[in-house]
């Protein structure tokens, strides 16, 4: 399995505060990779570094062999990395369809002249985009609400919308930031299924989560972050038995189970 994402000696500091230090791991293409760790361990910072919202203080992030240093977020998205957020960031005043179609922005290649003259290139591209948006919404079983304003969706549905929208950018790697935060067990089951479906369609998935049961059941490989450092990496079974991981989670274990 080839490596999609390669994190090498990654470090991030804010002033004197070292949020991440010497982080090393690799995310394969295909399959589901999990990054777990207690609150404040620095997980979201890793995502921010990968997606270009922050620049590394040390080390590097390589995607498909290419160094992402200095690239603007929209460039990184265009390379094939998409992301969802811990606190959902859908476009509330747009419909579901429009939300998903925003994700297709870079793939619609018609130009200003095409727009102004309403040329065939533009019309056909928009039509295709519309169909694709319906398709993606169908994948997450939201198509019946396609014209609803996104703000009116339930919490669980908003998360699913975020998936669909991320998928619209045609990524190879999908970064999911705490995808089941704030959900009840039934919703979590459903989302787990969604994520498996997405994986089965060939997308690489890299997720951050708190909920141990969720992560163990879903991921092929897991890395554990604690106080900005990687303390373990391996299969779920290896991680489950790892002494440092158990220690890190002691006390947070209850939190992890019921999260």
């Amino acid at each position: 399995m080839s490596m999609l994402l390669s994190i090498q000696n990654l470090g991030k500091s804010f002033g004197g505060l070292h949020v991440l230090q010497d982080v090393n791991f690799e995310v394969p293409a295909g399959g589901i990779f999990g990054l777990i760790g207690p609150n404040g361990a620095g997980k979201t910072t890793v995502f921010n570094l990968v997606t270009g919202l922050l620049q590394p203080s040390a080390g590097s992030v390589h995607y498909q062999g290419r160094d992402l240093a200095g690239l603007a977020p929209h460039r990184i998205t265009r390379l094939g990395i998409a992301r969802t957020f811990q606190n959902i960031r859908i476009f509330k005043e747009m419909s579901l369809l429009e939300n998903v179609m925003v994700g297709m922005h870079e793939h619609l290649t018609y130009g200003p002249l095409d727009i102004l003259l309403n040329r065939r290139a533009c019309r056909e591209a928009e039509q295709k985009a519309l169909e694709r948006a319906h398709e993606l919404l169908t994948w997450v079983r939201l198509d019946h609400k396609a014209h609803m304003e996104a703000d009116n969706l339930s919490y669980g549905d908003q998360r699913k919308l975020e998936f669909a929208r991320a998928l619209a950018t045609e990524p190879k790697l999908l970064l999911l930031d705490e995808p089941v935060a704030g959900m009840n067990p039934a919703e979590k089951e459903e989302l787990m299924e969604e994520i498996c479906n997405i994986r089965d369609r060939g997308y690489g998935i890299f997720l951050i989560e708190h909920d141990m049961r969720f992560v163990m059941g879903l991921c092929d490989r897991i890395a554990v972050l604690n106080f900005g450092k990687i303390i373990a990496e391996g299969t779920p079974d290896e991680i489950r038995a790892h002494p440092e991981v158990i220690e890190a989670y002691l006390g947070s274990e209850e939190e992890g189970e019921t999260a």
Partner: protein
Amino acid sequence: MEWLDTFWSTYNTLIYTLGVHALLALSIWLTLSCGLLSMANAAFMGIGAYVAALLTLHFETPFPLVLAAAALVPAIVALIIAIPVLRLSGVYLAMATLAFGEVVRIVILNLDITGGPEGLNGIPQSTQGWHIALILAATIYGLFRMKRSRVGRALEAIREDEVAARLMGIDVDRHKLFVFTLGAVIAGIAGGLNAHFTFFISPREYGFENAVDILTMAVLGGTGTLIGPMLGSSILTLLPELLRFLNDYRGAVNGLILILVVLFLPKGLWDPQRFKGWFRPQTREGGVQ
């Protein structure tokens, strides 16, 4: 047909003004559509007006070229200040553009070539109704098509959540630059057109109050659609005529309108959501033909 002639000779300036104000309202609508509150459009209008007037007065440039210059020069100025200014956001951007507007006004006020506080007089009345109608129609059409394309969606995404927009692959900075510059172009052309039917221009017409008037037009009408700004500009252009009896207090109405709209009609007068809400629950069209 005589009444038509009389009507026209009395009201043609007003009708032209309606057209020009519609253009201005659309220019600020454009910047607002991606979340930028730019108070510089009155200044861009002024730049366009003065460039146009000076070309006509000193060089007798043919009118089409004059209008082209009125579009181009503000665009260049916009491009120059855009790169640093657009790094700011929200209120900082508003204040920076406000400061910029003041600089422009003061410079115009103090240069000899622009006639100083007395402004420029005797500008030939080259503007015809069809010029305004044509340019307005072209602008409306262009903005309408833009709104329905991926560009329109991108702008709305930027307005709602800039960071999320970036992560959708949208080059936010490029879009902001585009919107800011195009807004300057539209305002500049409006200025050029305006100068050539009002006969006379002065720095007083392109200052802070004017920037606020333009903003009020868009806020009053509503920024959700293209109709909103035009509705707002029409009302605010006609209102002073209708309120003549208030004399000096007329301006107070503008202020009052701003307050009341912000408090009670946050989406402006023309809000399709509100209309639909009268008939059925919240839905929205896909925005695509």
